[in-house]
């Protein structure tokens, strides 16, 4: 199919670039990747400038500097983008004056009523969903805060913030975890889709891409209750995935005041993800270097995981665990399992 908005006047441009006529994609958009600048017209094979690229720009949305008093919970802070185009969020960053950090809650008020407002089940520690804390590795040593922007926390799935229909705002609430005042910032990073400034064929294509993502979005699950382990003590918090969607767990992050061991068990089936408890730094990463599950695990609605935790620090240990997931909302007519010889639609 010929790309409808390719401008023939631009087709001569790649002639000046060696190799421009080979190995170019025919896709004008590949989810999760930069928009290809030059693409191959699938009909003619000619390399053309991707018109989408002209109307998609990098964008960062930051809070103002926020000063939180000791242990203060902020009001809901609006993080608003103008109405010129959708905002696709990929990464998150933060700064915190205090090493204890702060917690974050995010929701998209523009999507209230369309069943995708919240981005986490409860407040999560910022260092488990954003980069900005620095990190230390056993072999490599300390990776300082100043290099944190080089290790962005990529969300498990890009989040499309729809600026149409009165949207364009992420509401954020922060809680200072320090017993001293704390100056913080929180930043969302991604790209803007300036569909309102684009010619209608391009704007239509952008809307089409946006609609393709309507049923999946990132979601961060943390334990259903706060976890504080006593010295060498144990606890078994749970994480319950909601009843509204399938959940795919892709990344595991943790922030704690001491080391601990974890054994993760599927509550209902008693299936263990490890027979022996595993030390926290061997089964979780951080916001800067998350633990990447080689096999993204799919959980049906209402699934529940139990985390059997034991302190190793011999001191009071506050544990924040966050699972980086994506939620997938299926049409009820499509959720029948496909088995060999059957498929959705077959009774």
């Amino acid at each position, binding site marked *: 199919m010929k790309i409808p908005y390719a401008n023939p006047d631009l087709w001569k441009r790649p002639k000046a670039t060696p190799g421009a006529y080979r190995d170019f994609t025919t896709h004008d958009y590949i989810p999760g990747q930069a928009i290809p600048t030059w693409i191959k017209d699938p009909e003619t094979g000619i390399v053309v400038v991707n018109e989408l690229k002209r109307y998609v720009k990098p964008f960062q949305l930051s809070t103002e500097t926020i000063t939180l008093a000791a242990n203060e919970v902020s009001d809901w802070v609006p993080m608003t983008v103008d109405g010129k185009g959708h905002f696709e969020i990929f990464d998150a960053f933060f700064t915190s004056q205090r090493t204890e950090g702060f917690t974050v809650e995010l929701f998209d008020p523009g999507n209230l009523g369309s069943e995708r407002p919240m981005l986490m089940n409860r407040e999560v520690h910022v260092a488990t969903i954003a980069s900005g804390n620095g*990190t230390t*590795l*056993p*072999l*490599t040593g300390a990776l300082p805060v100043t290099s944190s922007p080089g290790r962005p926390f990529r969300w498990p799935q890009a989040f499309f913030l729809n600026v149409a229909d009165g949207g364009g705002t992420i509401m954020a609430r922060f809680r200072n975890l320090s017993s001293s005042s704390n100056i913080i910032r929180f930043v969302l990073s991604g790209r803007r889709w300036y569909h309102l400034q684009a010619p209608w064929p391009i704007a239509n294509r952008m809307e089409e891409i946006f609609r393709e993502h309507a049923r999946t979005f990132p979601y961060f699950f943390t334990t259903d209750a706060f976890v504080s382990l006593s010295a060498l003590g144990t606890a078994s918090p749970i994480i319950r995935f909601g009843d509204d969607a*399938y959940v*795919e767990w892709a990344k*595991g992050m943790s922030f704690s005041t001491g080391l601990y061991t974890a054994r993760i068990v*599927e509550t209902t089936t008693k*299936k263990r*993800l*490890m*027979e*022996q*408890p*595993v*030390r*926290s*730094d*061997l*089964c*979780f*990463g*951080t916001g*800067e*270097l*998350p*633990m*990447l*599950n*080689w*096999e*993204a*695990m*799919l959980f*049906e609605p209402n699934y529940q995981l139990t985390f059997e935790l034991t302190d190793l620090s011999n001191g009071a240990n506050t544990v924040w665990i966050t699972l980086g997931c994506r939620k*997938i909302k*299926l*049409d009820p007519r*499509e*959720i*029948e*399992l*496909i*088995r*060999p*010889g*059957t*498929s*959705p*639609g*077959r*009774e």
Partner: protein
Amino acid sequence: MSFASFVRVPKRDQQGNVIIDPNTGRPVEGLGVNPIKPHVRSYWLADPNNATLVLAASAGLNQAGAPQQLNFLIDSQGHFDWASIVGVSTGVFLLEFFDPGTNRLLQNAPIHSSCIVGVGARQFRLPEPYFFNVGDSQRQLKCTLRDLSGASNTVRLNLIGRRIYHKEAPPDIALDLQRIFGMGSRTYSYFLLPKTTKNDGTVTPVSANGTASFEFESDASADTEIQKLMVASTGAFSFTLRERDTNRLLMPNAVHSQNGFGNAEFPFFWADTYLIERQKQVIMDVTDLSGEENYIYPVMAGRRLQEIP
């Protein structure tokens, strides 16, 4: 790669016939959960009897201690596809893996822990997943460890991968899984070390500002495809790599160790994988830059292609 969670399949009517869209003439597609996916889970494997292992101190730094063994047991609930290595320890150690099920060593000499043991945040990924087909019984992976630090050494070692619970899946899914995984594999992850590495994993140090040659050989039983390079050393060095039979250099000038080798957390990847054919050798000529006696433990991680006559 992970299994896809959702797949598109043609919709069928009650008689099982594919429904054709009259407008396009193509089958109508539906989106559904991949039936295999619910039976696959991430998995952390540890020795069931030794969550931590205390290695007896060796006689000194860079000397090997007495061997001790971890037995990673894969029960018969399902296959295990091993993808990465993580661990923590109070000192450096040497380790080697042996798969008794296939009578296969996964390296030609014991490996320095800093070269292949990562952490959760930066796991050491095997060049290709190593598949344990449990069949009707359990499988085992034996890991022999020796202290290299000269002090009592507490080690935690975990292998991360995914379990494929084919036995608890419905029969048709179980058959599908067996079909996908039951065939066995001809390639497997392998660690190539210099031939001069001693049987206990220790190395002869390079003298201060001195030179030495390490020879990596792909033996007669398999071709070896190298993917990444790691090293642990007590000082900086420069090196060149050349093929023995062609005398072809992989770099015209000596390269600093920091520019050509990584560690388990951040391995060095070549721009393309490098094939060392069977019975071919690669010579690594090193020159010490530290001005002191230098213990160098280089490792090439790759995969082997086993020829089946």
